[in-house]
């Protein structure tokens, strides 16, 4: 078994790429240099890979091992809380008979606590390692233990499987209580206007060069497509119904078609995301803690509201009141959580996390007010309008200030900035509906929206050089919203200028959506990168400080040095404990059968 392990190891990308253990004395150098490092599994059980360390022939293969482990050390074997990343061993191609000091195994870099998958033992037991490299990549993905940590039932399923297969059950790997990734980690690890680009000094806990399972790559910002399309449906409905635009002779069927497409699209997107919640809850959690993605959690409900607003007359004309309450409840609960965080919650204060995507959390209030007012409700819409107004003021001021403490603002123009236009245009429509006339309050909001729209439109030359992402669909609905508000304004103040304006804005909105549709199709079918690996959710819980310092320090240090170094470099106490016991651990391990 041990020999097998030594013999055949697949070369798979390591998790910790930058750790070059060839710098440790006793390793091979040249061969190792090109090789990615093994990733050693730190299990909660006694039977780990480490036992082989005593075996000389394996030392070589052990050396490039890095143990990635949670602070609570399983090395002592007592703490079952240890979770480590379930990774297949990466190995060198050929075993080289280099005697390694047993302590080479101490080059466990307890740098990053990782949630573990479990069942590595059974992977070992089942003898996966000797399998040939060629595999069906899709089945690979399904069984790939690297993603197990993100699976919802990571531990239980594998344990059940292993007991079914009759293997001795390992110590119950009690999964570490998943700590909330603090918001600072997101700011440290990511950059870019959508906070989805990994900084060069950071690592992620999922393999970078392999395509992750589809659900893991499926971001919540996909609901932006529903927002974009359903707002188009509303626009075409308004174009058909408003008298001042009758000269365009728009048929209500356009609205019907678009609406049906939106419904289907929403069903598909929602089903996929529901699957993600069920199967990969950890990923959903991390998206929730992401300072930008959290705003997209409002998107499904806003999309549903749009669907209700844009419902064609052929489907229904009267919507029941309870539907409004049902749709607004999730928005209300989310708001309580998020606005409360702005006011009082720890590190997520607005001066730090404010970004244009926060408009999505505010716009929901106005959309709900619009729907409620068009249904005939009175008090509820005013409630949400008031709450939205107060928080919109705060957000607007904060974003305009572009505070130095703010880390998430795009430094240059980015389509996300179009979200500025969304809130005032929808607010003006909502107020007009509540008051049954497009009075001064609505006009003020409308003119603000128009000003923001034009000040962005004249800079459209600068919207260049950004990587396309699905979230861009969410940025089209402000343009559509501005068009709808203009149509409403035209019905009040009907002259040639306003009519031209409404036609112009409608055209721009339609063209944008169309262009975006083409781009999406291109990315989906031609370039096949519509869903790239979602780096933002895979950032590690800690800074990889050890890695950096380790890098520079390495130059023929002995094992004592390594241990000693590890004691002081890792910031975590528990890591230190681990590091200090590595020595004893090595000897105490029993070789695998």
């Amino acid at each position, binding site marked *: 078994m041990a020999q097998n392990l030594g013999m055949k190891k697949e070369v798979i990308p390591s998790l910790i790429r930058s750790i070059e253990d060839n710098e440790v004395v006793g390793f091979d150098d040249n061969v190792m240099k090109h090789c990615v490092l093994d990733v050693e599994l730190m299990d909660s059980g006694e039977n780990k890979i480490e036992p082989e360390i005593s075996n000389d022939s394996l030392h070589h293969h052990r050396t490039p091992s890095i143990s990635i482990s949670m602070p609570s050390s399983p090395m002592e074997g007592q703490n079952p809380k240890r979770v480590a990343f379930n990774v297949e061993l990466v190995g060198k191609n050929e075993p080289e008979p280099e005697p390694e000091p047993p302590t080479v195994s101490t080059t466990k870099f307890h740098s990053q606590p990782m949630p573990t998958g479990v069942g590595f033992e059974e992977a070992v037991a089942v003898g996966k390692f000797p399998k040939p490299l060629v595999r069906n990549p899709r089945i690979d993905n399904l069984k790939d233990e690297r993603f197990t940590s993100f699976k919802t039932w990571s531990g239980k399923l594998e344990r059940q499987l292993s007991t079914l297969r009759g293997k001795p059950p390992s110590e119950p790997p009690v999964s570490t209580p998943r700590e909330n990734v603090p918001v600072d980690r997101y700011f440290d690890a990511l950059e870019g206007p959508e906070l989805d680009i990994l900084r060069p000094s950071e690592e992620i806990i999922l393999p970078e060069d392999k395509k992750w399972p589809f659900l893991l790559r499926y971001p919540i910002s996909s609901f932006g497509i529903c927002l974009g399309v359903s707002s188009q449906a509303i626009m075409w409905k308004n174009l058909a119904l408003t008298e001042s635009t009758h000269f365009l002779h728009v048929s209500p069927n356009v609205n019907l078609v678009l609406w049906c497409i939106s419904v289907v699209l929403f069903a598909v997107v929602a089903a996929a995301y529901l699957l993600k919640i069920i199967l990969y809850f950890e990923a959903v959690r991390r998206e929730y803690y992401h300072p930008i993605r959290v705003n997209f959690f409002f998107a499904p409900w806003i999309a549903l509201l749009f669907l209700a607003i844009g419902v064609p007359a052929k489907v229904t004309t009267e919507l029941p009141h309870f539907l409004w309450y049902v749709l607004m409840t999730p928005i209300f609960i989310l*708001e*309580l959580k998020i*606005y*409360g965080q*702005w*006011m*009082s919650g*720890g590190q997520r*204060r*607005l*001066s730090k996390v*404010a970004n244009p995507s926060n408009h999505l959390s505010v716009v929901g209030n106005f959309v709900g007010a619009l729907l409620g007012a068009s249904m005939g409700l009175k*008090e509820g819409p*005013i*409630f949400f*309008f*008031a*709450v939205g*107004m*107060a*928080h919109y*003021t*705060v957000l607007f*001021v*904060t974003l305009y200030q572009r*505070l130095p*403490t703010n880390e998430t603002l795009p430094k240059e123009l980015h389509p996300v900035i179009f979200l500025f236009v969304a809130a005032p245009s929808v607010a003006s429509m909502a107020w007009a509906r509540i008051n049954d006339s497009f009075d001064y309050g609505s006009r003020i909001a409308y003119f603000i929206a128009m000003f923001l729209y034009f000040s962005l439109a004249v800079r459209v030359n600068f919207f260049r050089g950004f990587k396309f992402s699905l979230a861009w669909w969410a940025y089209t609905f402000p343009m559509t919203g501005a068009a709808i508000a203009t149509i409403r304004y035209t019905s009040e103040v009907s002259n040639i200028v306003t009519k031209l304006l409404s036609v112009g804005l409608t055209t721009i909105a339609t063209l944008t959506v169309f262009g975006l549709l083409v781009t999406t199709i291109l990315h989906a079918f031609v370039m096949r990168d519509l869903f790239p690996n979602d780096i933002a959710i895979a950032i590690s819980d800690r800074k990889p400080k050890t890695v950096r310092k380790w890098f520079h320090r390495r130059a023929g240090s002995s094992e004592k040095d390594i241990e000693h170094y590890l004691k002081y470099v890792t910031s975590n106490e528990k890591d230190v404990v681990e590091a200090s016991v590595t020595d004893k651990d090595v000897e105490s391990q029993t070789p695998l059968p």
Partner: protein
Amino acid sequence: MTTIVQQPPPTPTPTPPQITLTVPSTSIHSNDHTGTLIIIKTLIIPIITRCHAGYFRITLSLCCQTLLWKTLKDPPENAHAYRRILGLFPSTAFLLLWSLSLLILTTLSILYILRCALFSNMVKTEYLNHIGVNYLFAPWISWLLLLQTAPFLTPKTVYYLLLWWLFVVPIFVLDVKIYGQWFTKGKRILSRVANPASQLSVVGNFVGARAAAQMGWKESAMVLFTLGMVHYMVVFVTLYQRLSGNTCLPTVLRPVMFLFIAAPSMASLAWDEISGTFDFSSKMLFYLSMFLFLCLVTRPNLFKSSMKKFNVVWWAYSYPLTVLALAATEYAQDTKSSFAHLLMLLLSALSVMVSIVLMVYTALNTNTLLPPDDACDPTNATLDPINVSSINLDSSLESSS
């Protein structure tokens, strides 16, 4: 606090043993004439030194409760059934409460005047502290509220007017001083000193505006309302941004965050009085206040650490709830729906319950009400009031003898 100790005579002459009253770090030798005076002094002086403006929270709550009871016990003619039920409130209870509020407010005011006279340096320290300065508004707000609830003074009389002027002028003066500091004076930058207690100054403006509108003085009411509204917007945005992080309010003072609820409710009431009806603006302010209330109430962990030991800060829970209940009353009166009246009943019941619980708790814990090391007074974080008082007492005694 004081101990009567039988001490051997300190002087070599064979004088009979003296009874000395000792305050730590100082001892007082008494003559028969001034014995009682000194006993009084040694009892009252420590109270005065510890009685900072934050204690006016108690009076704020009591006066607000009185206002609520007054509003509830006189339902208007076409009131909803629920509201008429509340009209069965015995008016003697209201009179009792009013007298209690008057008594406590007068006592506290006199104590505070004495404090200003005798220990003006401590008052100055309070003024310079960014949290304490807001509580300088509290006495005037309490008096204004009590004025509005006076059973024998109607808003149209001259006395009401005079008293209104008496209480509003200090508020206005404080406004000019404090708001002006925000944007002119070097160190008192709002982004650094803003804290939830800053909303108390805003509430003061709204209370004055409401009282003015009740008198019929619409223009003055508008002046005060505008002043309050503008600064409320600035403070609201700044507080939400939390530019200085969490450092501006110590955890013991977390109940002060309930002021987030008080400000929009008071604004809603003031606008209701000014415009005559509970229109859109008042409704929106009321809804905002409701939302903030729900936000805070669903976060009990915020307040856990401040609830460990009884503290006068606990009174900060009561008056925002009362103001919210008052606003709910006006709201229900306007909307006339059962849901609104239920809401009013709920909020009123909550505020009454909280006030009663606080009163009972305070009565049971009077010894800890004025703790020597008053943790809830931010200005006294390091200052030991007893030492200061004893030094002053020493010097005053020496000068008198």
